[in-house]
């Protein structure tokens, strides 16, 4: 596996070509706001990967309320407020989260990655919770995820059934929810990504979900870590490109 990955993956045949017009229209450069809490650590990685997609990223400090005209919001990975008490439990009280909730309720695209997913569940934009991994260990490794629905702001450029190599990096990534919630997620086609080989014990192999209006997505795998063949995979590009398309 290592040898295959290190030579760079060819884009999956399931992946649709990028939306027309993105390359040819620099005037429509999308501005993405990346929320930084004390303890966030993936914010620069998201900036870098969005940069390779010609998007403009701006860092938004957690204590401010102004989203500065961002057209999409990313809550990046890390350990906001040290993950103290519970991942995301303190972050939800930051000023900026009121604005993010408002933005999301108005239909704006929001992507929570890893710690960002945890924050989205804490703030109530997404159901369920993320508990400690089965096995009670931190896991940093490449994971294989399958696109379960193309109907979300983070998967609209992907095809259902497409398999992506995207790394995971978490201790609390074991998604759990009530039986009723799970049924609802399944019936409403709101499970966006599923693990091929469930690494953490998540219910129904869930790696990412979306809200009722399909503009808010939380996922444990890190798409920004899979945007360059030199790092082992470029499958995450389609996830970020979906977000940009949703922001147009």
């Amino acid at each position, binding site marked *: 596996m*290592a040898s295959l990955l*290190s*030579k760079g993956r060819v884009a999956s045949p399931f992946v649709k070509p990028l939306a027309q017009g993105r390359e040819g229209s620099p005037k429509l450069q999308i501005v993405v706001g990346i929320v930084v809490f004390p303890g966030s*650590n993936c914010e620069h990685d998201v900036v870098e990967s969005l940069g390779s997609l010609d998007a403009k990223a701006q860092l938004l400090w957690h204590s401010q309320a102004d989203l500065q005209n961002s057209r999409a919001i990313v809550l990046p990975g890390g350990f906001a407020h*040290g993950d103290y008490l519970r991942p995301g439990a303190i972050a939800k009280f930051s000023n900026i989260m009121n604005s993010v909730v408002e933005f999301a309720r108005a239909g704006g695209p929001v992507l929570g990655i890893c710690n960002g997913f945890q924050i989205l569940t804490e703030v109530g934009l997404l159901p369920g919770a993320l508990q400690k991994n089965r096995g009670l*260990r*931190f896991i*940093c490794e490449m994971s294989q995820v399958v696109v379960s629905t193309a109907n979300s702001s983070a998967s609209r450029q992907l095809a259902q059934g497409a398999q992506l190599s995207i790394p995971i990096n978490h201790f609390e990534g074991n998604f759990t929810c009530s039986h009723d919630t799970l049924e609802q997620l399944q019936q409403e086609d709101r499970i966006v990504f599923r693990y091929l080989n469930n690494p953490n014990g998540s219910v129904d192999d869930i790696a990412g979900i979306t809200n009722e209006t399909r503009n808010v997505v939380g996922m444990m795998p890190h798409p*920004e870590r899979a945007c360059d063949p*030199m790092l082992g995979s470029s499958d995450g590009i389609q996830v970020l490109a979906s977000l940009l398309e949703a922001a147009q």
Partner: protein
Amino acid sequence: MTPDNSNEPNETEPLHRLLGLTDDEAGKIATILGREPNHLELAMYSVMWSEHCSYKSSRVHLKRLPTQAPHVLVGPGENAGVIDVGDGIAVALRIESHNHPSAIEPYQGAATGVGGILRDIFTMGARPICLADSLWFGSPESPRSRWICEGVVSGISGYGNAVGVPTIAGEVNFDEAYSGNPLVNVMCIGVLPKERLVLGQASGSGNLAVLLGQSTGRDGIGGVSVLASAPLEDGDESAQKRPSVQVGDPFEEKRLIEACLELLDAGVVVGIQDLGGAGLTCATSETASRGNVGMDVDISKVIVRQSGMEPFEIMISESQERMLAIIAPSSLGRLEEICNKWEVAFSVIGKVTLGDKLRILSGSDNDSPSFQANGPDHGYSSDHTTSSDQTSGFILAEVPASSLAQDAPIYMREMQAPVWFQARHFELGSRPPDVVDVGTELISLLANPSIRDKSWIYNQYDHQLFLNTVVGPGGDGTVLRLKAPGLPKSDKGLAVSVDGNSRWCSMNPRLGAKLIVAESVANLACCGAFPKALVNCLNFGNPEHPEVMWQLSETVDGIAEACTAMHLPVVGGNVSFYNESGGYDIPPTPVIGTLGVIEKLLYVPPTMALVDNCHIFLLGDYDSNVSGSRWAFDLHEYKGGSLTEINFARHSSVMELVISLVRQRMILSVHDISDGGMLVALTEMAIKGEVGFSISGINDPAELFSEGPSRVIVGASEQGAQSVIRMANDMAVPLRELGVSGGDRLAIRGLMNLSLASARDTWTGQQAPAQQAPAQPLATS
């Protein structure tokens, strides 16, 4: 020995002895001061003159290490070594041990080891971009060793991941000799724009000394003296030293890193220094001493975690996540802004003065405080309820700053080669055991905990953060892009390797050390990197044992010889003595961290993964000497003979060939021969590449297990093979075609034919070695 009251203060024992100072050292302090020191002063000297802080036993030897090279910006003696790698970028590196804390409290010991080394790096103005570690534990059969191992790994994971610095390389060794005294060595590398380099020194009389970060508590009192600079006792007594282990808070550290880097970017800071071992005493005396100035420190301004702390506790506390910044008074407002943003607490605790005196005050210093030379209220006696309020306005201590930081006694301790040293060479040297069954012995090696797959460990570390990790852990060296926010653009890459080998060093510390440096350089070469700088962490037993001092001296000479031969500067290091428990010293365990540079990192260099349908070559000399090998030590308990001597001219030409082959993309796989020998190397390549091999021409099976130096295995396509042969000829490097890759068998004609799956399952631990089918004796090719 009576265990009941050995840790209790004893009325008849003088205070300086309780603090770990000898009578002679106490006398020297009195001479420096021209009077008897008071209790606080004695406490400050005891930590600064501890073995851990002062290097008093090793300094005479460390001077023999080569430290100069044109690209070295900062050598040993500062918080970290710094080299110029071009493109306007400097790289800071350092390695440090946290052995005794990890033995007593594995999680916190390892976690604070990570925290401490990070501060050493960002103190230089560098953003830490990676961590690497070298870990040595007792046998995993022992529940206690497993507890230590699991705790240390979770500590590194818990702190490193949360603080947001990837752990990208390392090694883990298991050996009975470390069951009482494990080793936890952590290396950190940081990057900075060259012009941002700052040094840990104070300057400018009237400038302010500001303490940033965590509040000061009673944790880590005497960490460097009673804990790090004395042997570990058995079980319960060591457990009583648990309060000497600090407690880490990675979230505080993360904010401190960001705040300090922003302070440096904003040009607010004149000098900055972390608080590590010996706490505030070390930070204030070192910054003042380096800057040839004095400093007044008002301990009533220190933010403390609990009330009623004694002055000596405040001065020697090793509470984590603290920095001392020296700033101009006019910068205070800007500092306040930045600290508030990052929610970092700060307090102005003192100011830079003319002269050379470090004065510890309590209360404001503007009304000519009076000095209390030996007042009973300012010292070490715990029954006093002295608080800073009561001693307001007094000078609690007044000593020359440089006497703390630089004037510790230097010892040339007695050295003596152990009696067995010669005996091993000659009495046992001639009769190594015979190889019985290659396949069975390979399986035993693959099941060896030190050789087995370590992904269960490194997968607990975030090794991908910052999007730089081009080749991650689990191979020869790790390859990173040279990139960070605020850094000039560069196509260069960094390669990192951390290596130790106590087997080699226990046989012959001088040669063993040379071989470790060589091995480290080989690991970098396999990534296509030239070595640029080296740091070392010298883990040894009790320096009062002449054999231990002999081992250290020999090791230093070995490192010096290797570095001189390969033009490699030593830019930093750490000596950890007193790695002794239950009366036994650990084997000499120098750990070498090397940093290499790849001039243009534009593609992923070949890894050890074997590629199907390739020619497999051995570059380097024939060697069938099994002395010192994992095979001899762990499978046959044969510890005699002599290690193969290294020829540095040969080593350099082999490594230059390997670097050229990697850079010119002539090879598809590469792996140097080290732990376990050639056969383990080939098998690791097969497992990683998921393809078998077929080898022939092995006349003496001992060749398969020899760990002789300067040998590298490469795999090349049909076309590449011609280039490999031609280039090896041109560079006069011996080359031998061992065979080809392909299929799902590991086959050596006449010696072994094993399924790749069984080797893999043993190596990954999915199958117990006892359940292995015996290897088939003959190949059927």
